[in-house]
């Protein structure tokens, strides 16, 4: 297949994937009063302002940033040492743990929602952001574990051995040699965990009840229903909720692609 043929095939796909988003973007700038017209006479930021007014959406973006950031940090803190141990210390049951993690990542979230709900209520964590971070973290550990274990395994074994002969303890070799070299893989894992937490709906809508604690997906899912906002404001809200992850996709596309295919193909 020549690049020319390839592009001919790819172009309809690009149109299919991007035109709806373009229409959404255009609609979000469309003055409400001109909706009946085939095209707007001018573009406006009023819809975005209206979507942010009342603070609900802005608050949700902040909540999502906190929850996703904390989830990514915690998941990496749990997964990176475990991945090192599995990849380099010959832990008994390491393979079993990876397999269990894979199985867990395939759980339908609904299968654990009821007991988690009860446990969070008992721990007085229901309807709190930390109460959402905990289940998010444990459901992100599998992905992080697979990605980071793969990264550590891809580093030549001799580097670890050289660090040991050069006088490092196992943890010293992890910290001074392996972790700096694995940084790109670790960052990729963190990125994907962040995106997962940013997008998650079921747990968020189950465990959070106060409007002020909503994350972006919850706020957006309930947006139209509660306020009967105008069409164009909904479009603006969808745009605003999208910007952070789309920025990630475009800025880090190479890492994200490497991670999601490695995570999926290996894990």
């Amino acid at each position: 297949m020549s690049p020319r043929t390839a592009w001919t095939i790819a172009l309809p796909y690009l149109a299919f994937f991007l035109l709806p988003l373009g229409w959404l973007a255009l609609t979000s700038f469309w003055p409400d009063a001109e909706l009946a017209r085939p095209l707007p006479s001018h573009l406006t930021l009023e819809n975005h302002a209206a979507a942010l007014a009342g603070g609900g959406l802005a608050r949700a973006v902040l909540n999502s940033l906190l929850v996703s950031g904390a989830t990514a940090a915690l998941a990496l803190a749990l997964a990176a040492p475990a991945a090192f141990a599995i990849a380099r210390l010959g832990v008994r049951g390491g393979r079993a743990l990876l397999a269990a993690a894979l199985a867990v990542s395939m759980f339908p979230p609904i299968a654990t929602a009821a007991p988690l709900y009860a446990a969070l209520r008992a721990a007085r964590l229901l309807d709190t952001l930390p109460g959402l971070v905990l289940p998010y973290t444990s459901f992100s550990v599998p992905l992080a574990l697979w990605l980071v274990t793969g990264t550590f395994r891809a580093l030549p074994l001799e580097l670890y051995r050289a660090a040991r002969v050069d006088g490092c303890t196992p943890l010293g070799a992890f910290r001074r040699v392996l972790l700096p070299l694995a940084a790109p893989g670790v960052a990729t894992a963190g990125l994907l965990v962040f995106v997962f937490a940013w997008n998650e709906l079921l747990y968020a809508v189950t465990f959070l009840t106060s409007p002020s604690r909503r994350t972006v997906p919850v706020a957006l899912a309930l947006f139209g229903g509660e306020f009967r906002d105008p069409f164009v404001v909904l479009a603006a809200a969808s745009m605003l909720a999208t910007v952070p992850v789309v920025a990630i996709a475009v800025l880090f596309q190479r890492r994200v692609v490497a991670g999601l295919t490695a995570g999926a193909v290996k894990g």
Partner: protein
Amino acid sequence: MSARGERRLGAALVAPAGAALALVALGPLLATAWLSLRHRVPVLGEDRFVGLANYGALAHDARFLGALANTAYFTALAVALELVLALPLALALHHAGRGRGGIRAAVLVPWILPTVVAAKLWALLLQPDLGLLARIWPDGAGAVLTRPRLALHAAIFVDVWKTTPFVALLLLAGLQAIPEDLARAARVDGASALRVFRSITLPLLRPAILLALLFRSLDAFRVFDVVFVLTEGGPGHTTEPLSLYAYRTLLRAGSFGLGAAISLVTFLCVVAIGLAWLSALGERRPAEAP
């Protein structure tokens, strides 16, 4: 540090991650199984062991059977369409040469969107008065989300729109793992481009295809977000999948025992699908995939 000390350190490093998995995933799963054997409605103060009665009730519950059928249909059609659409895209990406990064970044956008946003986007596009479809085809637009069969297919369509890129990128990774010399050798041996694809590329891509099918069907079977936003399960319960029915039984109706039973059936279906695909993958374990 001796080798034994090293193993002990390893166990200590693995323990927190293992505990996190056990406490927040495996533990709750067992709790769900236990809960499904009880009749528990906290608001009424009811809580007693009922054995398999909840499952018995489900067997005669038309809404449950409908949800099961919806979920199975959604999964089968969405995954099949995604695979069929993703293969040409993956091949195009593989051969695009310069500018491949640009296409890749572009197709990544639907996948990375929150599903809620994807569903909202299409809900707006299909909105009967002001949506894009209404502008193009004013008479038909009203029907899409109000007729049961059409609404379910609209949900499938949104899933296909959002997830085809992911499948394509998985297949692309599989394509890139095939040594280029094989195709060259086949061309030298006189095979046509089509023959090379049929005899070399497709067989060697089989593991990647099976893995994509495995991951996607497990993911599609737990569908929740798309339907929650696009149709809310309606009209009636005609587009309701298992996850949404379980969610409503648990949290709206507050019937924990029955909700747990639906959840567990969902889980067991996922396990069955997973095992079926894994046996299709044969001896190849996931860890040894390309």
